[in-house]
């Protein structure tokens, strides 16, 4: 799937400029070749002397429409990644009517006039100057025109929705309509008034048939992506840190200049994709850089505002927002904040209904801003680099009055306090403190009887093995993203939720769920250290209620997850000799002393680092060892953080823990995951294996057992 420059926020960046220049060049070429460097020809459409405008415009429209329908069906591009202008009935009707007048008078439209100028037409130059002047006129008249510019706002709405027909019916009707118009145009041009032979009838007949055929083909293509439109949100998440999302939002706000409103569906879409939020860090950056496009609105009471507010904010009571912000509708970015998120969210939705498309709320409100931007480095759990600490100090100096040196006691009740870096390991105390807060979803991985007997309040029961299955003959493979997405969507877990993964005793269960989330591009998760045993040991509350949840639409990224490798790739890496292959199975399986697979032993050149080495006991609970200890241990095995590493075990379960420790805890950047592992390798006799002692024959019982769901709990012991 293509991540369009619009979707990645690069439309107004050098890359976008270069692409726009090249596309513009082709656009100009096409217009000129169509003969649109001539105003007489263009204006001819209004006098029935030259129907080229109709022919070219509708050929182009139908071609592009069919192409885009096909591209969306084939999963090449998602609708969410396209900039679609919201419909404003009043503005579009009045604008169209006026434009028609200008077109008929001037004989040009803006694009063709640029081509006309390139063709040496001086009337085009004058027309272009008129456009510039007309734009200035619009700017000057904007305060008066604004009501019309927002009148009849319908949000992004498609013609087939307005006509209450299916998209396919519309596309087919458009194609047929275009063909009919072509024939009428030819008849007009050949009529007595012009008596000009146009293209041959044979050509037009062939063209008409081809166009209709193309429509039939495009409409009957198989739909290849399961969740069109939503796919990229999740897949992009890893590559796109929070500020980028707001940059994208800005791009959108800019390109949607002068537009208004969204219906409920659009608001929901904005919510689902996070386009209605601005992250605290991004807001801080904008305020500190003096961003003029930003309108920052504090919607708390005047007393609260007077006590403290963000620099540059204005205090507007909620009920006066539409009035006070009228001139900013569709311009720049309006950010609303309060202490939390509820009020701004409601205000934002009301404004959206009134046609404001450029309103964002501050993620986690003022509290989140304190937590993420202003909290002193010394109070943060995650270690800060000197640079980060300096940025925090700068932000504190900028936003806080001098006497407010230690805001440690900032009110934080009711707001989810996500660890500053995600994913992360958390302690039971953290989970207990944040339990029940909006946006936190807890998943309990213990077998169902244990879950039924008492679990963390509100937690969902999930069987780890339900995330795995047989992929093309390979057993125990992590399922493809769309299937995983379904699992989480059925529990109502979406891209913005913070998922807390709670295992029974084996951290490998938690990391396998982490792998599943990673495959979905979902980084907002934490793993509870020590799992349920640590929770119990801390004497924290449990209940036996089932959580209330409603299924949501699944978000599945397209394309590979970027970390899973196949056996062939491992073979190539082995042959290349530059990749470290880490076999994380217990030592006697590595050596071949024990085996429950087709062949005993290991991949030639592989290094054994049993996953249990990364675990420690903390009372009853099994935890992942402290970072410092692991850092030291792996530094001895892997020379640098960007060294190519492949981790594997037998089925991919244990290796998920090593992968997680290396990439998420220790920051190794080039670690791949050979999911199929020894199960596949041992079953391919043509692939070499090393086995030191005399191999034992695999007991058939053990081989069969390895798919049993309950096995995940006892896997550590069994292997």
């Amino acid at each position, binding site marked *: 799937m293509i991540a*369009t*420059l619009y979707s990645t926020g690069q*439309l*107004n960046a050098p890359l976008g400029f270069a*692409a*726009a*220049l090249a596309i513009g*060049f*082709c*656009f*100009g070429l096409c217009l*000129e070749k169509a*003969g649109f*460097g001539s105003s007489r020809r263009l204006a001819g459409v*209004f*006098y029935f002397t030259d129907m080229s405008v109709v022919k*070219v415009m509708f050929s*182009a*429209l139908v*071609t592009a429409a069919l*192409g885009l329908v096909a591209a969306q069906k084939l999963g090449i591009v998602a609708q969410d990644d*396209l*900039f679609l*202008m919201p419909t404003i009935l009043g503005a*579009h*009707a009045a604008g*169209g*009517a*006026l*434009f*028609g007048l*200008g*077109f*008929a*008078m*001037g*004989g040009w439209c*803006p694009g063709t006039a*640029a*081509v006309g100028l*390139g063709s040496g*037409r001086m*009337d085009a130059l004058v*027309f272009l100057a008129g*456009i510039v*002047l*007309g*734009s200035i006129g619009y700017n000057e*008249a904007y*305060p008066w*025109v604004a009501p019309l510019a927002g009148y009849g706002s319908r949000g992004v709405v498609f013609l087939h929705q307005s006509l209450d027909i299916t998209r396919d019916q*519309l*596309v087919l009707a458009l194609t047929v309509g275009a063909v009919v118009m072509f024939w009428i145009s030819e008849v007009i041009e050949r009529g007595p008034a012009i008596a*000009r*032979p146009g293209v041959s009838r044979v050509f037009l007949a*062939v063209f008409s048939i081809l166009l209709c055929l193309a429509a039939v083909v495009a409409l009957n293509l198989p739909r290849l992506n399961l969740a069109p439109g939503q796919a990229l949100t999740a897949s992009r998440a890893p590559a796109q840190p929070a500020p980028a999302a707001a940059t994208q939002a800005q791009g959108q706000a800019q390109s949607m*200049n002068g*537009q208004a409103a969204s219906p409920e569906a659009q608001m929901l879409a904005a919510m689902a994709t996070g386009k209605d939020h601005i992250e605290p860090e991004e807001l801080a950056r904008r305020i500190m850089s003096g961003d003029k496009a930003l309108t920052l609105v504090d919607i708390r009471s005047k007393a609260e505002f007077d006590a403290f507010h963000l620099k540059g904010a204005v205090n507007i009571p909620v009920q006066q927002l539409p009035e006070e912000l009228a*001139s900013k509708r569709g*311009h720049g970015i309006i950010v609303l904040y309060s202490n939390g998120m509820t009020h701004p969210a409601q205000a934002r939705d009301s404004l959206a209904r009134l046609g404001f498309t450029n309103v964002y709320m501050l993620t986690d409100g003022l509290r989140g801003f304190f937590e993420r931007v202003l909290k002193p480095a010394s109070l943060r759990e995650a270690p800060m680099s000197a640079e980060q600490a300096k940025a925090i100090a700068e932000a504190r100096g900028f936003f806080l009055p001098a006497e407010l040196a230690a805001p440690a006691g900032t009110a934080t009740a009711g707001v989810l306090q996500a660890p500053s870096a995600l994913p992360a390991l958390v302690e039971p105390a953290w989970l207990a403190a944040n339990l029940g807060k909006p946006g936190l979803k807890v998943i309990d991985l213990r077998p169902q009887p244990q879950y039924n007997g008492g679990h963390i309040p509100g937690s969902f029961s999930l069987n780890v093995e339900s995330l795995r299955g047989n992929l093309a003959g390979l057993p125990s493979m992590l399922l493809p993203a769309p299937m995983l997405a379904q699992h989480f969507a059925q529990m109502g877990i979406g891209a913005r939720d913070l998922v807390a993964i709670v295992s029974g005793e084996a951290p490998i269960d938690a990391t396998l769920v982490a792998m599943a989330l990673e495959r979905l591009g979902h980084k907002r998760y934490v793993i509870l250290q020590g799992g349920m045993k640590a929770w119990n040991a801390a004497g924290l509350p449990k209940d036996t209620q089932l959580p209330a949840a409603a299924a949501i639409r699944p978000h599945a990224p397209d394309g590979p997850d970027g970390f899973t490798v196949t056996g062939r790739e491992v073979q190539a890496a082995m042959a290349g000799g530059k990749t470290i292959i880490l076999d994380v199975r217990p030592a006697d399986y590595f050596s071949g002393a024990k085996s429950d697979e087709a062949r005993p032993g290991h991949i030639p050149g592989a290094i054994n680092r049993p996953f249990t080495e990364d675990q420690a006991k903390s009372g009853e609970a099994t935890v992942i060892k402290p970072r410092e200890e692991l850092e030291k241990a792996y530094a001895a095995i892997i020379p640098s953080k960007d060294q190519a590493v492949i981790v594997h075990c037998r089925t991919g379960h244990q290796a998920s823990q090593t992968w997680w420790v290396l990439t998420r805890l220790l920051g190794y950047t080039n670690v791949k995951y050979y999911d199929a592992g020894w199960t596949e390798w041992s079953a391919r006799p043509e692939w070499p294996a090393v086995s030191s002692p005399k191999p034992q024959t695999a007991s058939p019982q053990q081989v069969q057992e390895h798919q049993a769901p309950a096995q995940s709990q006892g896997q550590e012991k069994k292997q």
Partner: protein
Amino acid sequence: MSDTDKEKDVSPQAEAQAAPAEQAAPERQPEQVAPEQQPETPRPAAPRLQVAPPQDKAPMNPYLAGVLLGLTLMTSYLILGAGLGASGALARLGAVLEHALLPARAEASAYFGPWFPNPLSYYLVFMLAGVFAGGLVSAASGGRMRLMIERGPTASRVRRLALALIGGVIAGFASRLAQGCTSGQGLSGGAVLLTGSFLFMGCLFATGYLTAWIFRRQWT
């Protein structure tokens, strides 16, 4: 245009017409004569600014040009994630112009204001530059480049330029109101089946046809 220039023009011209010529062979010959020039052929050429020079090369088969334009539009959506557009860039130029004259007013204005400090740092500005360059290259290679004010044989230059200017002002205002012009709102929005774009096009052609007769004399 000199003879040598015309010589050079032959090959790209032939290339441009190769495709349509194949299918439209029998009737192609008369089409070679540019549509505009038909009524003008008997009329003596205007002294300096030629209205429709006899050597004007015929444009491409409009349907094929339309398909190419459609493919360009599709590419724009796939790569940029947005359609084509032309008026946006001119509005940005308007903002720069107003800023040059009245900086404080422009920056404080409700519509242009948010575009500052860099109104031209916008993809459509680059796209319009591309459109101009593409038109220039194609017109030059197709032998259709002609420095002139295009108008009817009996229409005065002043009338034509006055109408072009006023038409431009109206179209400029209208394209801001409608958030786009024929390319950005009509064609690009139409290709993704937006209701507003079809409404825009419907109203555009309706007023175009209703009012065109008033301005017909600039073409006669």
